[in-house]
């Protein structure tokens, strides 16, 4: 009886400590107006505020208690297929896959057992075994533990993907995950049927079937009950020591946080242990070394094809190759090459791995060959697989073989199960067969089964052709490397091109080639031949690859490849520079044009444009990472808009940078900001900024302030999906609204709207230009009908009429400080105020006013993003 009391007391105590955290965000009853969530508000473009139901999805809204939780696609899945029209099943909230996945996870909560002291490898094993695994993690900095569903490791094992109790996606860096997991005793909640791991589960304590804590044994076991049960273990001081096979626990205790029970060093050497392989009907899980993995044989088969027969050894592991960062898209599954894979890329993305740089543009189906950076995971075989080279028509005689342990590979600490395969190793991975339609290892079954059979079949059908192409490519890459040995330039390298390379670059190319670039540079032979006979235009894959090596190359080369080299190659190829850049980097032509346009507007020149594009191409990230913004919605048919976003953001970033540099040099102001690169400065000023393709209530673009707890924390710029024409200046106009938000967040009294409403700007003739108009019958904010001061009519250098995107002529909102300032901001960025003689100083008056305020605004906006208090 005492035990029962102790349990309920512990459960109650745990509920208090555990549940208050996650529940606190939604504890406001609907009938408490002072407690309700801050709604999204303050639409910049009136009178068309974005309807709340159109902006509520996402991280900014939390459902109130009693309201159904909206299933929000986790970011990584939204990232996977945000654009492709056929991929709604992945990212549509409330539909298909996520409904089913959620249902699956809820079902899986029932009938579970808590296991403590798991190793990371064991966690992976559980996950790859398609088990639904929950883990307990301590809160950062201490506090009660929380329960999360563990989805797996991603980004090459560098992060852990989890779902919290609200179905919200959480992606933690590996170290952070391990810290928090270890602090909670490395506890996981596993299906009861699986039982404790015979190798790693603690033998003495810490494993308490939840059924014993939940006498009712209800199927609908909730997260809260699980948490309560788990926490009862903690409260009862059950030892949570890691067990055998455990690598030394990282030092995770933080001040104020109780460290987990001391973990004895693992007994296995190097974090890898070997479990004796004994034939058995039941797999015995263990960890073996890499060499053993390579040698393990699961079974042998005899394949009969025509008159020929041969024996094929089938390893007892499955080799799955993913494009790194996109683990749900296997391109190389058990030796089967997916020719066309649905790659989750909705913007230009660069993959760089040593000497290889691959760029993929736009959401689309791509070929496996377009990626050179992937991760191969060796996973144990679960069930039956078809042998390589077997076809449906082949008479495959399968001979039983001793079943050895299903094995997996671990290479020490946090890089286990990960291997980056060099190109020349591809041949060892190839196979040419149809494969089973078994779910790809590592892919949650609940999601995999939702793939259309036709999609799966398509991947398999393309395998043969892709393999042939791959082999041909590799053949080219591995020939004609003699020039490296002779110390001479590449034999057929056009001297005109080679001469542009500094000696250091030539040497670096040679060094890089010797170090492992030989395959790619061999293909330069074809490329360079083209350079000499002026038929550069039709670049083959190999030639393109060579160009990429030549022009993007390794990090030590990137700074030296300047505009003249690119221009020389472009000239030799009879191509426009922009076209060459597009072809070499893979960056969408619209984006390339956008960057060039931005730099041209700013007078920065082609070198600056090239520099930014190379930065993008060589950065291991997407356009989002590069610009520091978030893209959401369906951008698949919005390449022009994307280019406009790029151009607009760059234009603002460089305008800021120019202003800051000048202010620092002349007035000694903004020195801290002057040290930032343009895009870093942009991010510092704007903070949370997202661009979305979505509903705009009849506008090309609408900017919405994002509020959290009564504080404007950022802006969302929504672009209408039909607004296909390029209009970077409109993006800049909208960024003017977002800029106001950034300043307002720091000091609501100093934001541009407020100040503009209080000032009166007149021109040299005394004509009212903009602002408060203290004349008879006015006494209000007013903006000249003709747009005085903005370049009017024919003189406007921008795309919009009269250099005003929201003029007085458009609607009544045009005559507000909001829209007037956005147009002012745009003309300040483009330096396009009307300074003609007929403007009578109106444009200069506008320029002077906004310029006189800009330093303090920038300081405030940057300060707000730093989290400092406003003065």
């Amino acid at each position: 009886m005492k035990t029962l009391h102790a349990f309920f007391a512990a459960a109650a105590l745990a509920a208090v400590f555990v549940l208050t955290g996650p529940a606190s965000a939604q504890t406001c009853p609907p009938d408490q107006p002072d407690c309700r969530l801050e709604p999204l508000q303050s639409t910049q473009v009136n009178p068309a505020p974005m309807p709340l139901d159109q902006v509520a999805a996402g991280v900014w809204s939390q459902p109130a208690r009693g309201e159904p939780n909206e299933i929000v696609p986790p970011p990584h899945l939204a990232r996977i297929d945000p654009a492709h029209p056929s991929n709604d099943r992945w990212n549509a909230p409330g539909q298909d896959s996520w409904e089913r996945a959620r249902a699956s996870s809820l079902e899986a909560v029932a009938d579970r057992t808590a296991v403590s002291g798991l190793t990371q490898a064991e966690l992976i094993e559980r996950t790859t075994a398609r088990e639904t695994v929950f883990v307990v993690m301590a809160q950062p900095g201490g506090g009660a533990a929380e329960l999360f569903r563990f989805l797996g490791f991603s980004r090459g094992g560098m992060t852990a993907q989890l779902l919290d109790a609200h179905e919200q996606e959480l992606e933690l860096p590996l170290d952070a995950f391990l810290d928090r997991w270890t602090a909670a005793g490395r506890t996981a909640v596993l299906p009861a049927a699986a039982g404790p791991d015979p190798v790693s589960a603690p033998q003495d304590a810490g494993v308490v079937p939840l059924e014993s804590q939940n006498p009712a044994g209800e199927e609908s076991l909730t997260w809260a009950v699980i948490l309560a049960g788990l926490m009862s273990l903690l409260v009862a001081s059950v030892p949570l020591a890691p067990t055998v096979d455990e690598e030394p626990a990282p030092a995770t205790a933080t001040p104020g946080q109780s460290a987990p029970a001391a973990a004895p060093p693992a007994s296995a050497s190097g974090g890898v242990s070997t479990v004796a392989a004994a034939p058995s009907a039941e797999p015995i899980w263990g960890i073996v070394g890499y060499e053993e993995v390579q040698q393990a044989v699961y079974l042998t088969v005899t394949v009969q094809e025509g008159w020929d027969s041969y024996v094929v050894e089938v390893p007892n592991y499955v080799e799955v190759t993913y494009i790194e960062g996109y683990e749900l898209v296997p391109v190389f599954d058990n030796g089967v090459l997916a020719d066309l894979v649905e790659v989750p890329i909705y913007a230009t993305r660069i993959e760089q791995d040593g000497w290889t740089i691959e760029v993929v543009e736009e959401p689309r189906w791509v070929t496996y060959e377009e990626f050179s950076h992937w991760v191969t995971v060796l996973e144990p075989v679960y069930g039956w697989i078809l042998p390589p080279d077997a076809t449906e028509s082949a008479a495959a005689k399968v001979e039983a073989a001793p079943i050895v342990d299903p094995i997996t590979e671990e290479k020490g600490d946090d890089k286990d199960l990960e291997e980056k395969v060099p190109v020349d190793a591809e041949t060892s991975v190839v196979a040419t067969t149809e494969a089973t339609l078994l779910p790809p290892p590592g892919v949650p079954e609940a999601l995999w089964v939702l793939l259309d059979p036709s999609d799966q079949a398509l991947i398999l059908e393309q395998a043969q052709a892709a393999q042939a192409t791959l082999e041909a490519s590799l053949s080219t890459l591995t020939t004609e490397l003699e020039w490296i040995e002779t110390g001479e330039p590449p034999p057929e390298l056009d001297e005109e091109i080679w001469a542009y390379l500094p000696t250091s670059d030539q040497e670096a190319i040679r060094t890089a080639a010797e170090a492992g670039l030989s395959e790619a540079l061999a293909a330069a032979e074809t490329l360079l031949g083209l350079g000499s006979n002026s038929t550069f235009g039709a670049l083959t894959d190999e030639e393109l690859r060579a160009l990429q090596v030549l022009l993007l190359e390794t990090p030590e080369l990137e700074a030296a490849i300047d505009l003249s080299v690119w221009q020389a190659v472009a000239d030799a190829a009879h191509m426009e520079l922009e076209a060459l850049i597009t072809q070499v980097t893979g960056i969408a032509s619209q984006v390339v044009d956008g960057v060039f346009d931005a730099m041209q507007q700013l007078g920065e020149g082609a070198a600056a444009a090239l520099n930014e594009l190379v930065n993008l191409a060589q950065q291991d990230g997407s356009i989002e990472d590069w610009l520091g913004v978030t893209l959401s919605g369906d951008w698949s048919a919005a390449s022009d808009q994307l280019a406009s976003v790029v151009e607009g953001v760059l234009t603002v970033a460089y305008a800021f940078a120019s202003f800051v540099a000048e202010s620092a040099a002349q007035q000694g102001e903004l020195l801290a900001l002057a040290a930032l690169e343009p895009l870093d400065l942009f991010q510092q000023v704007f903070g949370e900024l997202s661009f979305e393709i979505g509903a705009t209530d009849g506008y090309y673009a609408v900017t919405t302030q994002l509020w959290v707890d009564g504080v404007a924390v950022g802006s969302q710029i929504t672009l209408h999906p039909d607004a296909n024409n390029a209009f970077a200046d409109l993006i800049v106009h909208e960024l003017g609204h977002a800029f106001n938000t950034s300043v307002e967040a720091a000091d609501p009294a100093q934001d541009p709207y407020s100040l503009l409403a209080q000032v009166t700007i007149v021109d040299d003739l005394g004509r009212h230009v903009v602002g408060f108009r203290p004349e008879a019958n006015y006494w209000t904010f007013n903006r000249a009908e003709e747009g005085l001061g903005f370049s009017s009519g024919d003189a406007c250098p921008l795309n919009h009429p009269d250099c005003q995107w929201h003029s007085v002529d458009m609607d009544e909102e045009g005559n507000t400080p909001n829209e007037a300032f956005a147009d002012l901001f745009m003309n300040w960025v483009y330096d396009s105020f009307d300074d003609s003689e007929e403007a009578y100083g109106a444009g200069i008056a506008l320029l002077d006013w906004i310029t006189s305020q800009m330093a303090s605004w920038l300081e405030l906006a940057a300060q707000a993003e730093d989290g400092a208090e406003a003065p």
Partner: protein
Amino acid sequence: MRTVGLLVGSLLAGLVLLACQPEADPARDSTPAAHRSTVPMTETQHANLDSPAWPSAASRATPSPPSQTLSPTAGEVPPTLTASQQRIELSKLLLPDEACRLPCWWGLVPEETSWVEAERVLSRLSARMLSRPAQGGRILHGVAGLNITAEHVDIWLSIWERAGRVDEIRVTAAGDRANPNFEPLFRRRLRPFFPDRVLEQYGPPEAVGVALKRQNRMSVLALELLLIYDGFEIHYQGAVPRGESNHRICPLAGQIGVIRLDLRPSSPTPIEGLYLPIERAAEIDSQGFYNRFRGSGPTTCIETPADLWP
């Protein structure tokens, strides 16, 4: 008694002074002082022709020096009209004048009238004037303060002087949408210069150009309509609603907010590139445009295919 008399006298004087104060304007009194930072706007001002050269565009990081202050021309004290008198005077001047047909404006004929005469005419209107050197060896005289304020109609002139004569005149008249009655007031005041009356007065134009440009509101397009005559051009600016397959341009239906007259322009506006010729925009030629709109009403429109425009 003398003291009492002084006190009474002082009291009466004080009352008189108080009574003579302008009536307090609640709105004005409630306005923060910062709102009143305006430049002087009442006195007639003539620029000194020796004023500094036109200021160049200021740096984005360095505010320009304050705009130069105008200095009245010494010795000239033109008669000052009250606001009411100015409104009446302007109203008269905006009526059709058979003796002064475009490109004549208020009696000023480009390439004929001397600047001295022009200055005399404009001075009567209590206009503010500013003169500066302009391109091509000309002098640009800006003329403002011709507003019919009560109706929110602003008019300003740019007059280029060359060798002592008026060379070119640009007249801009703008309504103000801050006034809820903006459109009828503006149309009433500028009626003679709306397309129907211009066509009636001056016959078929040599060319008609149309331009529709995007604005942020997808349902509205910015309108620019251009009538070109021998010796002058008339630009109309406004907004038209976006149609499904065609956009309807109805110049007399409240779509026009700004009218600009370029009288004897030194650089005639090229239609190609900036506008679409009416022939292409609406499959109607200048004569057809004239026939349709001459003496027309607000329901007279032309339609232009939507796919021609952004």
